[in-house]
């Protein structure tokens, strides 16, 4: 398996702020790579460097073997880009936007007409092809942007928060398309805030925080490495005193989540016994009791040191 994206010691400063701080990682050819991080962590700066919009202060990035600074045209030629905010020309029709992007990528006229027709049909926009993008909904704009990103048949697709702000149906369609494109051989580089999305879509994930890579691995390995985040979840027939629960010896932390209580522990087996003992002693009936592996969200919050709320 080859390397689609190679990043070495990439650094970018904005004045006194270090947006990206000496990061290095690789993205395998044919994979879906998730790039996660809280707001302001450096995700968009990294994606902007990789797509040639801004230059790094230090370090090097190659896309499909092309150095983005030394061979920008070759590197950009093999990319498709779906930015967080739609950047189609709203005063042009969907069709004209596709023709323009096709021309910018040097796609021959006959081929770009064929591809534009096929893509617009696939993304249910063909009937609206002559309508100005100004009148499109956010979901339609996002689908058009994906069409524009695919008109050059890229080897790698960069998606910056592709489902942000979309309704449930459009987001689902977008995720299905990403999977389908990846199945067709396109490498996907994805930034998202949606942990469930990252967990389902990505085969490797990097978590960036304060401009640095906090962790990089498969979603499953990231979850398994965080044994301290294992938990059990229980609900009782009566409200319980959270202060009492916090005193149970084998429980690290108890957290109320709706009508359930989540107990963080390094030993779920012992914690189960403790909780059952607690229920017996206090004449409580256990309604549900489950052991939980740490979710990607738990891992993310731990690594980015964001405090739990509630």
């Amino acid at each position, binding site marked *: 398996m080859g390397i689609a994206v190679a990043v070495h010691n990439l650094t970018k400063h904005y004045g006194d702020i270090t947006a990206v701080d000496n990061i290095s990682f690789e993205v395998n050819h044919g994979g879906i790579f998730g790039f996660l991080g809280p707001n302001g962590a450096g995700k968009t700066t990294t994606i902007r460097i990789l797509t040639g919009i*801004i230059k790094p202060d230090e370090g090097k990035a190659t896309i499909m073997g092309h150095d983005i600074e030394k061979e920008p*045209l070759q590197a950009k*030629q093999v990319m498709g880009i779906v930015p967080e905010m739609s950047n189609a020309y709203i*005063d042009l029709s969907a069709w004209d936007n596709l023709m*323009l992007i096709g021309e*910018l990528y*040097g796609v021959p006229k006959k081929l770009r007409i064929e591809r534009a027709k096929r893509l617009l049909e696939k993304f249910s926009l063909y009937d609206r092809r002559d309508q100005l993008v100004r009148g499109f909904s956010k979901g339609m704009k996002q689908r058009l942007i994906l069409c524009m990103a695919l008109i050059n048949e890229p080897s790698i697709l960069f998606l910056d928060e592709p489902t942000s702000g979309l309704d449930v149906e459009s987001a689902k369609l977008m995720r299905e398309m990403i999977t389908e494109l990846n199945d067709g051989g396109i490498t996907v580089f994805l930034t998202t805030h949606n942990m469930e999305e990252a967990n389902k879509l990505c085969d490797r994930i990097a978590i960036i925080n304060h401009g640095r890579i906090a962790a990089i691995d498969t979603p499953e390995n990231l979850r398994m490495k965080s044994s301290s985040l294992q938990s059990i979840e229980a609900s009782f027939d009566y409200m319980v005193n959270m202060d009492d629960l916090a005193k149970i010896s084998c429980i690290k932390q108890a957290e109320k989540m709706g009508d359930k209580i989540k107990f963080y522990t390094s030993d779920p087996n012992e914690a189960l016994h403790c909780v059952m003992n607690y229920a017996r002693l206090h004449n409580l009936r256990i309604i549900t009791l489950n052991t939980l592996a740490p979710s990607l969200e738990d891992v993310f919050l731990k690594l980015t040191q964001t405090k739990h709320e509630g």
Partner: protein
Amino acid sequence: MLPSLSIFWEQLERSFAICKKDIRIYYSKGPVVVFGLIFPLFLFLAFTIGRNVTAKELFPGLLGMAVFFTATSVGPAILPWETRSKTLERLVCSPVSTWAIFFGDIFASFIFGMLISLVPLVVALVIGVEITNLLVLGISMILATFCFASLSVLLSVYPPTDIPATVMMLSSLIKFPLVFISGVFVPVEQLPEWAKIAASLSPLTYFTDLAGYAVNGVSYYSVPVDLAVLAAFTLVFLIGSVKLHERFLPQRFS
């Protein structure tokens, strides 16, 4: 074909795609066309009504104003507009060189300037203004329109803002003084010495002088000097706009 030449042509083709886009989005709007036609005419009339001058004498100044104002009318606002709508990011991350992006904008200004400037030229011919040297007029119109189109893109270099009004206001501060010192309203030979020096600093002076030569057969500077200086201004504006935009472009994305 040599690889570098083939890449150059490929990039030039992509420039034309940007040019077509600019014309469709920014130039082919009724108000823009009307403004391009009416504004130089009214400004010119404001300075000539009541003075006893013939159409032949009026022609160089009117043509100069038409070429100058139409070729610089929309160019300065394109980049702030595209910065704001994030479409500039789309262009920058596509496989198009920075120079090709700005060439596209310059070509669009050039085509718009040429087409609109043909109107006063045709009107002048219809009302009986005799052009004695059409070749000089044609070459100078092409050169001057390209020069002013390059200037229009140069005018949006700084500040690297996403507010079109800011750029338009600042560009007016440069465009209007240039018109007043360029022998449009008063021929250069009738200007005082200090004004002649000031006039020599404006590219519009040389075009107005050439337009005067095309109808009257006389010019203040010689035709080769006019053409050479106009070409030099064109090169300076062209290279300056590309280089300075390359320099300030990152600030538009920060």
